[in-house]
């Protein structure tokens, strides 16, 4: 089995923080934690290449670094890519996560890494990757790398991976169907009784964790600002030209409202299950308040209302999907020079 390993400048033996600008390097054989990983993976495993990159360089030039790594790994014929452990080193975690994620996505080669749960790399890549929970103590290096190796073998062999707590990786926030010997009602009553008795029980629903979002600065002069409306309530032109799904939408659309003062019922429909859409169907301004915004634009309160509104359907949508939709919308918002957004949510 051929393995390619990624480490930062510190674990690659180049140096500490003062060498964080070190450029990307490809070294033959195993270096630093890669040696331990190779040993724990067993006799038929060889680390053929260790990739080393300074943390600052990796984060500041992420696209170039990822592209160069993809080329090398593609040519290497690797069966597995491993990175880290990154502990609570944020830039290392982001770099290792970005590289592992690109390798899995672009090359279909499984990847394994390890980080502390609060490493920002976890938030960015937990859904795509198996990230072993490393904690923050480098003294546990051997145990962490052993867990990575055990999981890595399973990924290469395409064996089923068990639950996060059993396998030692950080929850990916995924739900998986499983056959149980008790019905949901029985399991719920069991949990309730355990709770009433003060005993330990494991809920089958885990709340999602959301990292705090920094507050964008206020608009200083609205009369000069360009404003856009986005809705997740599923308002689309008649015929739903982008075929936006009414549940778990994978797409969004941009719809022209230039020259229009009011959204008319006959021009629109609503692609959104779950809520009673008749009221919005009767008057779409109840979801995209064009009439009011146009008045405020004409009276000079708003500089300009953007000529399109964006729309998607927010119903029963996995976070990995909505985050992608959000990122795509943000690219457009930036490209179009929009200063502020009003998002209406049903």
């Amino acid at each position, binding site marked *: 089995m051929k393995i390619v390993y990624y480490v930062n400048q510190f674990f690659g033996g180049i140096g500490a923080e003062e060498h964080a600008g070190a450029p990307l390097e490809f070294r033959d054989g195993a270096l630093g934690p890669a040696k331990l990983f190779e040993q724990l993976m067993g006799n038929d495993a060889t680390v053929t290449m260790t990739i080393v990159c300074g943390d600052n360089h990796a984060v500041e030039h992420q696209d170039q670094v990822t592209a160069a790594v993809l080329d090398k790994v593609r040519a290497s014929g690797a069966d597995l890519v491993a990175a880290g452990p990154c502990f609570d080193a944020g830039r290392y975690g982001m770099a290792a996560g970005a590289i592992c994620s690109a390798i899995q996505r672009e090359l279909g080669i499984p990847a394994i890494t390890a980080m502390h749960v609060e490493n920002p790399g976890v938030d960015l890549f937990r859904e795509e990757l198996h990230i072993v929970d490393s904690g923050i103590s480098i003294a546990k290096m051997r145990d962490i790398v052993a867990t990575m190796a055990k999981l890595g073998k399973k990924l290469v062999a395409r064996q089923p991976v068990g639950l996060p707590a059993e396998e030692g990786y950080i929850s990916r926030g995924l739900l998986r169907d499983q056959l149980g010997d008790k019905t949901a009602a029985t399991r719920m009553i069991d949990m309730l009784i355990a709770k009433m008795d003060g005993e330990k029980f494991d809920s089958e629903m885990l709340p*999602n964790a*959301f*990292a*705090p*979002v920094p*507050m*964008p*600065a*206020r*608009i*200083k002069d*609205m009369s000069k*600002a360009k404003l856009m409306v986005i809705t997740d*309530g599923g308002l689309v032109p008649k015929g739903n030209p982008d075929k936006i799904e009414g549940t778990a939408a994978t797409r969004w659309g941009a719809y022209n409202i230039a020259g229009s003062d009011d959204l008319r019922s006959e021009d629109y429909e609503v692609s959104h299950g779950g*809520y*009673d*859409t*008749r*009221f*919005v169907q*009767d*008057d779409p*301004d*109840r*979801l*995209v*308040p064009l*009439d*009011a*915004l146009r*008045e*405020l634009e004409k009276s000079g*309160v*708003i500089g300009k209302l953007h000529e399109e509104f964006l729309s998607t359907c927010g119903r029963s949508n996995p976070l990995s999907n909505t985050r992608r939709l959000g990122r795509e919308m943000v690219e457009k918002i930036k490209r179009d020079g929009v200063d*502020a*957004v*009003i*998002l*209406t*949510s*049903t």
Partner: protein
Amino acid sequence: MQITSALPIAKMVGSNRVVLGTGIVHVTGDAKLPLKDEKDLRRKLVQQALDALQSNEKQ
């Protein structure tokens, strides 16, 4: 900023500027009101949204 009637969701995901809408089924309207009153209501909601965008206070 966000106009929504599902305030707990906006809070959960960490929206920084939130104006409470008039209902899940008509966030920026109210089907029970005569058209003129509904338009007044919508103008007020939109004005609140603009106020939120011009303030640095979490709301």
